[in-house]
């Protein structure tokens, strides 16, 4: 029986292992059931990674993101509808609510048809902007596929993106060429810090509305690398929202296509690998950080256990030790998190503003996590401080830890005694000399009885 249970558990764990860190229920919004077969490799890949796929049409009556007030799905993959909107179940408000409750979304757009206004207003809330007429396509006369778009130049060939900045982990990098047909370009506003570009168009690209007879060159919204083919937003609760400009890139056709850039060689596309990376990131298989144990206590000599773990109160000028355990989820397992070389994981000891900002060093490593720690002296200021680890980087889930502790003043018996302070010796000497002098005076006074003669003389006077 026990064997059976162990086997069952192991099987269950194996099944769970190959899953996203935040659930497996994936809803695919697909307007036309016939189109399902176009993406069969993608579905197979996703199912192979352990997702339970359900397909719904946006027009379906029983489509609802929530059931009994809870999320009904963990992830949402929206393919662009042909019709104007996404229906009553997928209003921008509902979709934002889905994100608010930790659901993740991958939204695919297409340059073939104009994007619906509902999606447009949803994207505006995330500070991702589409072209004003919502039906632009990115064209590049230097990086196009000569096989499939010799005329229109609207199938872009791009290398996979490297890291966004040197201090950011790459999640979408690799060898090979991506073919992105008919990209609906996105531009990112400068207000939001939560959006990040994944893949932007080459400098020679521009956006253009194929329906207009004469392209207007006067009012160009954005050109070149301002245009994004893939952009993402990670909400403050770490819910992920990825926008892919070209839905066609996910089709079976482009997974296995061979492309040729002008003046280049014929190469197979790496769309399938990129689709895996993008869906894995969007559905929280990569770039997920988990905070394990957080410990702080008074610093001890090596090996000694602290008297009290995570005390509520410290004193000023205490030597204090802080450690935080971080793991990163990579596809199917938790691994020790490593901070990129150019980056720093920092601890702040704050009251209104940081009194200390220290970089946390990796000190210990377990099978699934790294323990970062540091040691410092609490400032000479009493108050309610907090240990804060505020590690927010693009593509990584947010780590925001705040642990309040009180830093109190010296108690009346914690000051050094007066005789221990050499500067106080003068005063102590003064004190005792006065006391001694007084005693001597009293003794002299008491034992120097005036001669009785003198007393008599005084009386007579």
């Amino acid at each position, binding site marked *: 029986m026990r064997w059976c249970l162990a086997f069952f558990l192991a099987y269950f764990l194996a099944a769970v292992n190959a899953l996203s860190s935040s659930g497996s229920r994936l809803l695919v919004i697909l307007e036309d059931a016939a189109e399902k077969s176009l993406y069969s490799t993608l579905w197979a890949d996703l199912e192979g990674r352990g997702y339970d796929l359900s397909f719904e049409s946006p027009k379906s009556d029983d489509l609802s993101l929530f059931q009994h007030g809870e999320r009904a799905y963990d992830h949402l993959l929206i393919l662009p509808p042909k019709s104007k909107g996404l229906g009553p179940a997928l209003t*921008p*408000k509902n979709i*934002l609510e889905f*994100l*608010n409750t930790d659901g993740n979304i991958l939204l695919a757009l297409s340059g073939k048809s104009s994007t619906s206004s509902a999606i447009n*207003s949803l994207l*505006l*809330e*995330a*500070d991702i*902007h589409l072209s*004003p007429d919502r039906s632009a396509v990115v064209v590049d006369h230097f990086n196009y596929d000569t096989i499939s778009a010799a005329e229109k130049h609207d199938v872009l060939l791009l290398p996979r993106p490297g890291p*966004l*900045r040197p201090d950011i982990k790459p999640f979408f990098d690799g060898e090979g060429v991506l073919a992105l047909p008919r990209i609906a370009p996105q*531009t*990112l*506003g*400068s*207000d*939001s*810090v*939560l*959006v990040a*570009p994944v893949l*932007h168009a080459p400098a020679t690209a521009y956006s253009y509305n194929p329906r207009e007879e004469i392209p207007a060159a006067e009012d160009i*919204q*954005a050109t070149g*690398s*301002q245009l994004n083919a893939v952009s993402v*937003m990670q*909400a*403050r*609760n770490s*819910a992920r929202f990825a926008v892919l400009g070209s839905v066609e890139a996910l089709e079976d056709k482009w997974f296995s296509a061979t492309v040729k850039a002008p003046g280049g060689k014929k190469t197979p596309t790496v769309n399938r690998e990129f689709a895996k990376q993008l869906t894995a990131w969007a559905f929280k298989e990569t770039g997920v950080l988990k905070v394990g144990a957080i410990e702080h206590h008074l610093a001890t000599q090596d090996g000694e256990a602290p008297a009290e773990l995570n005390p509520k*109160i410290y004193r000023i000028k205490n030597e204090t030790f802080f450690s935080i355990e971080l793991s990163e989820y990579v596809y199917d397992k938790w691994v020790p998190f490593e901070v990129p070389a150019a980056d720093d994981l920092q601890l702040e000891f704050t*009251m*209104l503003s940081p009194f200390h900002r220290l970089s946390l060093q990796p000190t210990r490593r377990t099978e699934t996590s790294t323990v970062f720690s540091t040691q410092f002296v609490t400032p000479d200021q*009493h*108050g*309610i*401080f907090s240990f804060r680890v505020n590690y927010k980087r693009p593509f990584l889930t947010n780590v925001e830890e705040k642990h*309040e502790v*009180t830093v*109190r*003043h010296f*108690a*009346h018996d914690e000051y050094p005694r007066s005789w221990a302070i050499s500067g106080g010796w003068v005063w102590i000497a003064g004190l005792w000399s006065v006391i001694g002098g007084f005693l001597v005076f009293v003794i002299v006074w008491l034992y120097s009885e005036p001669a009785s003669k003198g007393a008599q003389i005084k009386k007579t006077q």
Partner: protein
Amino acid sequence: MAHPALDVLLKGSSGRSTRGLLRIIILCTIAAAAVSSRLFSVIRFESIIHEFDPWFNFRATKYLVQNGFYSFWDWFDDRTWHPLGRVTGGTLYPGLMVTSGVIYHVMRFLTFPVDIRNICVLLAPAFSGLTALAMYLLTSEMTTSPSAGLLAAAFMGITPGYISRSVAGSYDNEAIAIFLLVFTFFLWIKAVKNGSIMWGALTALFYGYMVSAWGGYVFITNLIPLHIFVLLCMGRYSSRLYISYTTWYALGTLASMQIPFVGFLPIRNSDHMSALGVFGLIQLVAFAEFVRGFLPGKQFQRLLTSMVLITFGLGFGMLVLLSVSGVIAPWSGRFYSLWDTAYAKVHIPIIASVSEHQPTAWPAFFFDLNFLIWLFPAGVYLCFQKLKDEHVFVVIYAVLSSYFAGVMVRLMLTLTPIVCVAAALALSAILDNFLVISAPTPPAKTDTNKSDKVKKPIGIYSYFSKTFVTCSAVLYLLIFVAHCTWVTSNAYSSPSVVLASKLPDGSQYIIDDYREAYYWLRQNTPDNAKIMSWWDYGYQIGGMADRPTLVDNNTWNNTHIATVGKAMSSREEVSYPILRQHDVDYVLVVFGGLLGYSGDDLNKFLWMVRIAEGIWPDEVSEREFFTARGEYRVDDEATPAMKNSLMYKMSYHNYQNLFPPGQAADRVRGTKLPADTPQLNTLDEAFTSENWIIRIYKVKDLDNFGRDHSSAVAFDKGHKKKRAAKKKGPRVLRTE
């Protein structure tokens, strides 16, 4: 004569002990009357701590009882002044809490299971009984008439001027401090009279207790040296003065320095310098007296003049030098406001904003003291007639405290004891002369031999005038008692935590919004949710809701209070970062508009603006809250600054929905309100009490999608977002 049986009791040695017994019974009755007249609030409402400051004292006492004296001494309170905290153990006068703590432990030791709250509630009445006894002792020192002391005790027991600060539940420092004040003065008079080290040391002991109990100890610190100084100027130096003063000063200063909050103030603060100066002066005078015995007059005169000049010059020079170099702290702001009543309004709005720091209105004197106030000058006049050392004390005390009582309402409290003494002296003089039935006996015949006419002794002969004066005195006394009872019951017995009002049919209606809201906080918020409110409510939130607050009635940090004032008086976009920075979870405002409760935050709002303006004159301006015609308005014509301020929005949020469209009215300020309810973006309404007196708002988290709150709210309301309007200049797009 007629009753020989009574003669046994009234005459001779047994008569003396009968009178003594009678006196004790009278005093006990007076003490009982003093206690019972303070129990109105307990009977009307319940055994509850009143007002604001008592809630802190109560909380501190609970801490003391739970954690013991040493942890109280070292108490760092992390639930007030978030995030600064308060070194509470070192910044309070511990006398009150320690007193109740001791009473609590004694009761427990005697196996009386008493709740600490009841001790705190009833401490003030109990001590007022003691005050009456101390008053008897003090007044008895002033006169030989036995009735004066009893009268003074009776006056002190029930006069509203003292009751205002000592009803049951008013658990404030003054509750025990007035007893200590009177008793210290009694001991001081004893010490001066007897020139005794023992009485001087006892004075110092009780002075030390007084220092531990109330900041008003400075009054004693200055009054006693002044007494000595005046006596010296009157040429009344004696070794009695020297002994009593030096004993008191040396021991008393040492005792006062044991209180952490006082610490080195007695030698560093200007408020204490007069005591030190007189201490020096009396040494010099004593030395001069000593030298006078050895030197001929002329040389002594010259020596004295030169010595006085040199000493004065040196002392003054030192004082200036030390003040300039900062060793001696300059006079505190509260002190300046004692001399110039407009000073605080201009320089320290935080002091001026407290209602009990306002100058006293004239009717208040009669209201608080009734007929004592016109007997008072008569009593002072009687003191001039005898003018012994102790009478000089009464005169000085009377002059000083009448001035101070005129400057600040709360100092009425220090005036009351001396008014009782003086009035009792006057009234007892009247009664002693008019209550004698027999005609004045002529003096013994042996003295006046010369004249043939036997001079009639001066006195009252007519029964009519005796009856008339006695009756009117009794009438005044009866009116006094009636007045005191009426004032106590109507004006001073409201806990102010619970408001009482009368319904049209005369039945009582209790408005319990404060406690409703505080208990809501206690039940529904996390244990360390930070509450921001104006400082008036800090102690109550700490005491009743048990939640950390940003500012409270211990107004030690003006900047922090100004920060709260700025958050309240600024636009939401300005306030929100302040709220975030200070970890504020909930904001609490008091709004009286629905009920007509005038003590609400909008009426205090200008003080918030003023205090904030004191720190950030560029960002907050009082002028912007007044209309062009200089009016403070909340209706349609309110200024934009007013309408956009967080306080205005929080007060009137959703208020208009209570009324039919366009008829919303504010019953405190008596105006119609704008038709639309103000739009709050960064706060969510969390709780509104039954009568809308307390409104609590929850501070929203940052928007999940990085939008600003106004556009997030607009989106939730269904407004479509327009593409950002085209700005002039190049568009900024991200290319990273």
